[in-house]
């Protein structure tokens, strides 16, 4: 068994740690489900098409499938690219927000298409939104830390104009998700402010990534802007004064080392003694008589 495992360790390939292309192999009737998510950043739009296969009550992600993403204004259709779905069934494409074909209202129709194959039927999804931009500015006024947010869209001449009366949500990225720290209501000039909290922990230099979002807007969809500011509380890494049990400490506690050495030395000394006795039995054999 040791041999088999040793053999396995030689032939194992890190890249093969998980199955490749191990999609649903059943041939029963299935339905393809495609969803399209849109996020408009400062200069780019991010399109995420999620492809799943519905079989009975269960929906499974389909990986390694090609999805085609396009942008259109009704007359011109621009291919943004093709992307392969990952383990989660997501195919992601980032495209420059400038140069997208827009209709007279500035709206862009994004669509995702899975052509289908012998096993899985084709599927399509679409989303219509007008690209917009959120900017974040930081200032200190009367010892108060102020976050100012502006949101703009482009008119038919390509000039930036303010987005009035929209709600912008403010977040800080944390370990698992975004931590919401406030909301800003934009005024007629597409501008809003809030006092920035003082207690948020940043990195060791106090840097914080601040994210501002317009979410689920009928016209703009999801728009996001972000900026970095060193207004966070400086993160203090715990530094043990004496070696402790943590694996990242340079050396184990002294008591642990001593205990281990004493125990191992004690045990192995007895082993050596037992082997010594065997050697002595061997040496004594020359003058011995047979048992039978």
């Amino acid at each position, binding site marked *: 068994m040791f041999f088999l495992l040793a053999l*396995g360790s030689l032939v194992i390939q890190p890249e093969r740690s998980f*199955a490749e292309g191990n999609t649903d192999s059943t041939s029963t009737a299935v339905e393809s489900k495609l969803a399209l998510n849109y996020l408009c950043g400062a200069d780019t739009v991010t399109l995420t098409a999620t492809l799943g296969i519905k079989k009975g009550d269960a929906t499974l992600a389909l990986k390694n499938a090609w999805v085609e993403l396009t942008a259109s204004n009704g007359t011109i259709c621009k291919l943004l690219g093709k992307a392969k779905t990952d383990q989660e069934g997501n195919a992601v494409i980032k495209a420059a927000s400038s140069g997208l074909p827009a209709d007279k209202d500035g709206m862009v129709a994004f669509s995702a298409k899975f052509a289908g194959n012998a096993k899985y039927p084709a599927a399509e999804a679409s989303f219509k939104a007008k690209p917009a931009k959120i900017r974040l500015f930081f200032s200190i006024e009367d010892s108060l830390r102020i976050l100012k947010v502006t949101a703009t869209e482009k008119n038919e001449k390509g000039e930036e104009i303010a987005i009035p009366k929209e709600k912008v949500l403010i977040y800080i990225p944390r370990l698992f998700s975004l931590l919401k720290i406030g909301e800003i209501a934009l005024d007629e000039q597409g501008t809003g402010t809030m006092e920035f909290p003082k207690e948020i922990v940043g990195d060791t230099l106090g840097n914080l990534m601040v994210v501002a979002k317009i979410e689920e807007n009928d016209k703009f969809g999801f728009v996001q802007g972000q900026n970095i500011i060193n207004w966070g509380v400086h993160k203090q890494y715990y530094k043990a004064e004496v070696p402790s049990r943590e694996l990242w400490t340079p050396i184990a506690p002294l008591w642990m080392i001593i205990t281990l050495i004493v125990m191992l030395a004690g*045990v192995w000394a007895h082993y050596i003694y*037992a082997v010594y006795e065997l050697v002595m039995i061997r040496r004594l054999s020359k003058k*011995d008589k047979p048992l039978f």
Partner: protein
Amino acid sequence: MDPQQKNPLRDFAPQLERTSIQGYAWIAFLLGVIGLGFYAFMDQVLNGHIVTGMRDNVVWGVYIVNFIFFMGVSYAGALISGTLHLFKTAWRKPVIRMAEFITVISLLIGPCFILLCIGRLDRLPYLILFGRIQSPITWDVIAISTDIFGCFIFLYLAILRDLATLRDYELLQLPKWRKKIYKTLALGYTGTPEQQERLNRATDIMATMVIAIAIIVYSVLAWIFSVTLQPGWHSTIFGPYFVIAAVYSGSAVLIISMWVFRKVYHLEEYITKKHFVSVGVIMLVLAAFFGYFTFSDYLTKWYGSEKNDELLIQLLFKKFYWPFIISNYVGVLLPLIVVGIARFRTIRNITLTAVVVVIALWLNRYIIVVPTLESPYLPIQDARPEWLNYSATWVEWSLTATGVAVFCLLFTLASKFITIVPVSGIEGEGKKEDVLI
């Protein structure tokens, strides 16, 4: 004097000299199971651990359960054989060799399941190269490797007299190469007073060591669980609880081995009801201890009413209801009834009880490992149901069966190499009682 009449080996010669057709069929069957395991293993190596039921949440499954089980059986063998030897228990001889074999064979199989559990076997050398003394995993690696050496030395010391007996018994019809192996391994032992004194001293020392090491090593294994803050694992009594569970399962495996070898090699004269009852009483006492530790562990968890402990206990009484009942009720009460009440105390009943105890103790390890991982402190986000719940796949079951098959195969081969009952204590018909008592 006619050596054929005088030598006790005559009763055991057939098991060493010949293998019946049924014996070959049995070995072929075991090799077939091992072949299936090899196929499953290659599937796992080529396609990764996705072919197992282990996922992000439940990262340990039946491989770890098997690891704990086999290691437990091994330590039990060491504890039983070491204790019987040290206390010079009168009835020990017919069973002590089996306990020694169980120790070494289980010890070879158990760690293989850890290797099967590791996703990146190519990183295995890092355990040695970058091992941290602060890590319980490193403690376990050191402890198990130390234990393997100790158990091999103890086994060797225990069989040395028989190796010499086999070397010197000329009527034994064995190939020359086997005779040569016996001669080499016997180290020229002829049983002189000085040799005996040295051998006894070394054996006594190693018997003491294997008992101490078995307790420490299995406690280390328990600490891997209990030093974490996971519900169900973070328990101060896990060390002794694991040791008791180990000896308990090992005593049951010993009874099953006694029954099998008694039947196969017709050792009814040597392994009698007295031996079954004696080991059965050990099993009974351990069942009581095991029940006490189990009750104590779950009572404090239940009474403490910590949120995650409560969730775990709910899970045990719902999803894992039958494994929990078989493990902690049937597995405890059955030996108390069967061995405790004289009317039920037959060889067959004791053996069947031992089979139930082995199953119960395997399930006990399962409900220690899996339900806790299915109720973690930090739930993973956007998890699919199959990531949250564990269900072993055919690959894991095949490799589990392979572990059992390798155990049986090595036990069978060991019994073909050296007598399953020590014969060196018998020098003639008149001294057969040495073994029979």
